[in-house]
Every structure is written in C-alpha cells, then in structure tokens.
C-alpha cells in the first residue's frame, strides 16, 4: 500500500467522529443526487412514454398547398387566398416509404390514411378521426396490440378497432357494428374487433382504426396515403432527424418534439432545476468536507509536524489529505448510492396508482451511479485541496517546539 494512502487511512481511522461526519455528509449528498435523478428521470421517462403512447415520433406528410398572394388591386391591398384544406396524398408514397425505411435511425414506417368523419350507432353520433392503417407496421409505431382492453388486433375488410371512450359513448361492444361516414355522403359499416386504451382520453374518444383500403374509399384518397408515421431509435434526436428527412424527401416532417413543445419546455426546466439543486448539494457537501478536514489538520498538526520535520516532501503531505477527501467521496458515493436507491424505491412504493401499479417507474441506471461516484470522488478531492495546502504549509519547527 502506498505510504500516503496508509497514513491517510490511519488519519481517518484515528479521527473517528470526524470521519463519521465526513462520510455521513458525503453519503447524504450522493443520496440526494441519486434519489433526485432517479425520480426525475423516471418521471420524465414516464411522461414522455405516456405522450408517445399514442403519437408517432415523426410524421411525414405532404406540404400544405402554397398560399397565393394577390396584389391586383390598385391600392395595393394585399390579399392572401388559402385554398380550402382538403386531404392531399403523399406523392409517390411507396418510394418515400422505402427511402424512410432505409434511413438509419428509423425503426418502423407506417403509412396512414387519416381524415375526419362521424361514427354513429343508431341515433348516437360522434365526430371521430378515421385512421386507415396496416396493422403490422402501425403496431410497431404505436403499440396498440399490447394495449387492447378487449378483442384482437385485426383489421380485415370492414373491421375496426376503436378506443374505450368511444365504445362507451356509443355503447359499443366487440362484435357490434359501427357506421362511419365522411364528407360527400360516403359511408360504410364496420365490425368492432378490438377496443384499446392508449392512455390518452382524446385518442380513446376519437380514433377509429380501419384498414387502409377502407379509409381510402371513405376519404376519397384512392391509392394514396395522407402521412407516413415513424418510430425512431433516438427519441431526443427526433428534431434533427425530422429536419434531415425534410431535406431528403421535400415533404413536411414533424417530430414529436415540435408537436409537444410545451412538454419539452417543462422537461427542460425540470432538468435545469434538478441541476441547480444538485450543484448546490455538491457545493454544500464540498464545504462540509473541507471544513471538517481543516479541523482535522489542526488536530493532527503534531503528526504532520513530525512527518515534515523528518523531511516528508510537501507533495506527500498534501496527498495524504487529498486521499482522505477522495476516500470520503468514494465511500460516500457507495453508501449514498445505496441510500438514494433505497429512498427512490421506497418513494415509488408509496406513490401508486389506484390499481396498485407504480405511478411512475424509477430508473436506476448504472450510468447514474457511475456519475454520482465520479462527482463524489472529484468533490472530495477538490474539497481536500484547501486542507491539504494548510497541512503542507505547517511549520515543523513550531510543532516540534510546542508539543
């Protein structure tokens, strides 16, 4: 064992009360950081997951029709004329689909034929969003099958899968018939084969999933699709990827981040307040370690004086104290990680949904512990700099004389 480490450990063992205080301080600091991170990460992951439970990561669609500007009046009265919004198909969507599927980072591509319509049963009627999808690719973008509350994930011919709110409002059950109508009097009857709960009331109320071909007929978009919906690998890289896809396809690509700007802002401010809190915790822990070590330098001045009188180099004396800081940080990070994880687990145990499932999952990743350990280690080391310098500057002649 190196001499400095040996002496450092002996110093720590000798100053039992101080060492206990040091370790407690470092552990609590690390625990707070771990707990806070686990909690906030978990919260954010579950918020994002909830949001993306019924949203594709990126939607690629045809650009809005260009607005024409008319400046024909002598008074230069500017008039902007927008064409009436109507469904536009994505040009050459099969090729675009192929291109998207070959783009690195894209995991799944689902063509969607979407448009407004009415769902009715008997006298009851509701405004809905008709969504024509291919079951397999669509389920890879939005995982409907695992969130079916009844029936199966099957869309053939004139079959439809609807949300549980709509089913409730129209009093529909599996095997019941549902009438869908769209603009210009086009209408068709569908058999309910599945009922889903995507965790979003609006979606549960409005989405009617039908086969692509049926939607094309209803919405007068024969052979076309209104959008291509994507699942990608790097959630938080959605914005960049969308921009790249726009460049490559000439179409409009909207990321979930753009569509949920408010959520993202909230997440960001949450993250920055977390970093603030962590920063101040680190500063407090560092000051605590530094002040306890400074006291221990004074208490150990006799030993330090003897070592220095014997000719121990300044660097070795400094290292003895730096090592103490590092050991405190290191041990504190282990104890603190355990404490913080325990707290986080305990806390999520308390916060439960009515059905007993955790309100949100906490995420305890190895990366979190490694970061906490690194931060604690460096904090301990930095906190020990001032005490180490004090120790190294002690005048051995004074100590030898006065003891």
């Amino acid at each position: 064992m190196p001499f400095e480490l040996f002496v450092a450990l002996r110093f720590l063992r000798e100053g039992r009360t101080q060492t206990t205080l040091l370790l407690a301080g470092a552990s609590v600091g690390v625990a707070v950081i771990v707990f806070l991170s686990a909690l906030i990460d978990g919260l954010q992951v579950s918020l994002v997951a909830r949001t993306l439970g019924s949203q594709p990561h990126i939607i690629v669609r045809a650009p809005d029709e260009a607005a024409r500007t008319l400046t024909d009046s002598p008074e230069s009265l500017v008039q902007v004329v927008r064409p009436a919004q109507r469904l536009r198909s994505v040009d050459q969507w099969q090729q675009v689909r192929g291109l998207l599927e070959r783009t690195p980072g894209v995991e799944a591509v689902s063509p969607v034929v979407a448009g407004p319509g009415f769902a009715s049963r008997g006298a009851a009627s509701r405004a809905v969003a008709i969504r024509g999808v291919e079951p397999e690719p669509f389920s890879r973008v939005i995982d409907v099958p695992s969130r079916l509350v009844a029936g199966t994930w099957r869309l053939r011919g004139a079959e439809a899968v609807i949300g549980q709110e709509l089913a409730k409002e129209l009093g529909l059950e599996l095997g019941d018939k549902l009438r869908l109508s769209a603009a210009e009097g086009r209408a068709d009857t569908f058999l309910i084969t599945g009922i889903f709960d995507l965790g979003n009331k609006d979606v549960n109320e409005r989405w009617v999933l039908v086969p692509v071909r049926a939607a094309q007929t209803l919405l007068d978009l024969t052979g076309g699709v209104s959008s291509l919906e994507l699942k990608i690998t790097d959630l938080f890289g959605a914005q960049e990827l969308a921009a790249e896809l726009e460049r490559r396809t000439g179409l409009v690509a909207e990321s979930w981040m753009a569509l949920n700007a408010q959520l993202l802002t909230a997440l960001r401010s949450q993250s920055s307040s977390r970093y603030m809190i962590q920063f101040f915790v680190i500063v407090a822990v560092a000051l605590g370690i530094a002040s306890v070590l400074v006291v221990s330098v004074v208490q150990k001045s006799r030993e330090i004086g003897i070592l220095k009188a014997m000719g121990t180099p300044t660097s070795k004396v400094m290292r003895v104290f730096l090592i103490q800081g590092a050991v405190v940080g290191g041990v504190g990070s282990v104890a603190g990680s355990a404490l913080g994880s325990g707290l986080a687990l305990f806390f999520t145990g308390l916060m439960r949904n009515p059905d007993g499932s955790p309100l949100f999952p906490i995420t305890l990743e190895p990366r979190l512990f490694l970061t906490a350990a690194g931060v604690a280690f460096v904090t301990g080391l930095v906190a020990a700099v001032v005490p180490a310098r004090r120790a190294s500057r002690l005048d051995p002649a004074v100590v030898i004389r006065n003891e």
Partner: protein
Amino acid sequence: MHVIEAQGLWKTYGKGETEVVALRDVSLRVSRGEVAALLGPSGSGKSSLLTTLGLLQFPDRGSVRIGELEAVIEGRLRVDAARVRRERIGFVFQKANLIPFLNALDNVLVAFEINNRGGREARQRAAALLDYLGLADRLAHMPDELSGGQQQRVAIARALAMEPPVILADEPTAALDGRRSRDVMQLFRRVAHERGTAVVIVTHDHRTLDAFDTVHEMEDGVLRTTPHPSAAPAH
C-alpha cells in the same frame, strides 16, 4: 573534512520588548565519527542551534554546510531543506517524537517510506534496528503502550534507519534512568564509530559526558568549546 559545519550563526526571536537573541555568532564543526555534546542551562539556545543545524529553521545570519552541501549561506537557504532532512539527517527530538497511531515498527518504517524506500527489505531492517535497541518484543506496540525510554529508543531507531551522515538528538536520555542513558549514549558512540556518523547530542546529564569526543557549552546564545573532560579525542 567536517560532516557538519556552522559558521557565524545569529538567531533572534521576536521584536522589541520580547526580543530574544538565541544564537550569537555560533560556529561549530563536527567530523566523521565524532560524538559531540551540547551542554548548557535551560534557555541558553541549545535547541535553537540543533534545529538550525538540522535545517528546521534558518538563521538570520551565518552559514550551514552539511557534507558537501552549502545548505545555508549568509542566512539564505540554498537547498531543498526537506530533502536534506530526510536523506542526510536523523533527528531525535526533545518532545513529540513518535506518531501516536503507528506502532513501533511503522514509526521506524516512516523514515524509509518518506524516501520512497519502503518494502520488505525496509521492514526487515526496521525490525533489525528495533532488535538492536532491545525492542524486539515491542514491534507491534503503540507508542502509548511503551515506556518513555522505550519510546525514545524507537525514535533513535528511526533516526538511524536511513544511515544518515548526521544525527541530531535533543536530550534523548532525559526520560531514561542512569544505566539506560549510559547505554543509549554508548549506542550513539558505537553508531558513530562503526558508521562514521557525526552525532550532536544536547544533554544535561553530566554522568554521561565520558561518552563524548567533544563537549560544547552554550550560555545565553554563545557557544564555548571546552577541552574534553576525559581527554579522549576522536580516534
């Protein structure tokens, strides 16, 4: 050539009312294998001289040479004092000698460790030294489990550890009884004569004076070299 040589040392502590001149133009030479005694009343400046020779403090004026190293010239330090101390000087201090939370063996090992010479061989040599000083059965004892004399012997073992050319000891026998102090003095004498070490020992103990080659007396900061009582000069 003298192993240690001090020339015209002056040292003043404090200012004005509390000013104390601890060293007044002190010069001293000690040769290889010589054991020199430093006598004098309390407060006469013996410890001041010893710590100045040992580069633990520095004179206002004067020079100190250790071996071929001009360590202090005209009151100015010219070398890495800590390095010279750990490599060339063995100290036995008047007080505060041992590190309280290290056992006897580890206290001796410190001398090797600070020179980056720790390891198994160092451990064996430290044990052998303690054995040589009659502490073979006390290696694992902590300082507070040792008598004053035993502690002093551990300190002596530590001072001898690196086989330095100079040993400076401040009243090493103060805590020892008559027989033990004679033994310790004989030990220094043996080390000096066997290894050629220059030894300077501060002592009050006139009973042990015949163990010294030279005797220097301090009085109010002034050093006087007296003819040796038993007139047995260094070989």
